[in-house]
């Protein structure tokens, strides 16, 4: 299948005969990246599925007004991050849970979820990541797994490059210690 550039997809969406088709191509292009970004935050597949669908429905509603002063994929990541954080906030509100208990619940899910593959050290890394504060965890995942540039992360998260660098390195250091100590 031909993979269109973001500019071509936007052009097709705005001026083509079939914006639904163009949007479908956009979903196909970015669904996996968006899905795994959200999954690393939320852990559970069913919840992630809801959040990803919401992300793309919101993207559909906003795409005609999308201004190209940002990249399309950072815009999608931004919506997805916002949706994932909103989801976690609602989960905490619904169960009156402090943040730490949500992370503990997610960590237990990593241990027991049959939908998790990987050997002991890889699972240990996931558990280490879940000991990080929520926002530090997002910063770490974007940098470590998505290999995103700090400048792009800054677009996604609306945070300065300096703050992101400090956050990532502190997160990496904490994980390193966890891996040695546990």
């Amino acid at each position: 299948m031909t993979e269109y550039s973001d500019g071509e997809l936007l052009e097709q969406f705005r001026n083509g005969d079939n914006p639904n088709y163009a949007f479908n191509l956009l979903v196909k292009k970015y669904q996996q990246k968006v899905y795994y970004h959200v999954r690393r935050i939320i852990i559970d597949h069913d919840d992630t599925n809801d959040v990803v669908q919401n992300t793309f429905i919101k993207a559909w509603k906003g795409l005609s007004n999308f201004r190209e002063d940002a990249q399309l994929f950072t815009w999608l990541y931004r919506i997805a991050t916002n949706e994932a954080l909103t989801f976690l906030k609602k989960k905490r509100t619904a169960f009156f849970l402090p943040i730490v208990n949500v992370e503990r619940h997610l960590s237990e899910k990593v241990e027991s979820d049959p939908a998790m593959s990987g050997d002991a050290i890889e699972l240990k890394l996931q558990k280490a990541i879940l000991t990080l504060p929520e926002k530090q965890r997002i910063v770490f995942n974007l940098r470590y797994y998505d290999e995103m540039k700090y400048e792009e992360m800054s677009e996604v998260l609306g945070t300065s490059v300096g703050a992101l660098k400090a956050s990532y390195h502190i997160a990496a250091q904490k994980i390193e210690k966890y891996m040695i100590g546990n």
Partner: protein
Amino acid sequence: METNNSNTNLNQDERFPNLEKAGRKNLFTVPEGYFNQLPGTIAEKINAGKQPVTYNRNYKPVVLGLSLILAIALMFGVNYFRTIENKEVSQPVISYQDIHLTELEDQVIYDEITVEDLADTTIQDAVKSEMYDYLIENNTDISLIINEL
């Protein structure tokens, strides 16, 4: 996105050997055919004009209980619970600038850095090292900065 070639510093970070040993393998699996079906599912919802879901699929009993408590509280003039917020979910996204990630402002990121983190010399070294990398990556003349001090 960074490519592997332009990102050797990230991929071979000797400061975090145990982290590097664990690798970057994606551990999360999805049901078979999930990514083949997802675009169709999203298209169906868009065509049906569905609004985004409000994430209460599993929480109905809790939400009912909360509603009861809220009603009782309101009867007694207590309104502590009125700040429960779902504005971000119910309002459609209009533009890039409308997606405010207030929870991720710099201050919040810095707030997550604890006093213990700052006292940790290995972390200080890591941050310093990253700052130097940043200056080098951006061809910043360090002597100019020193002269300004």
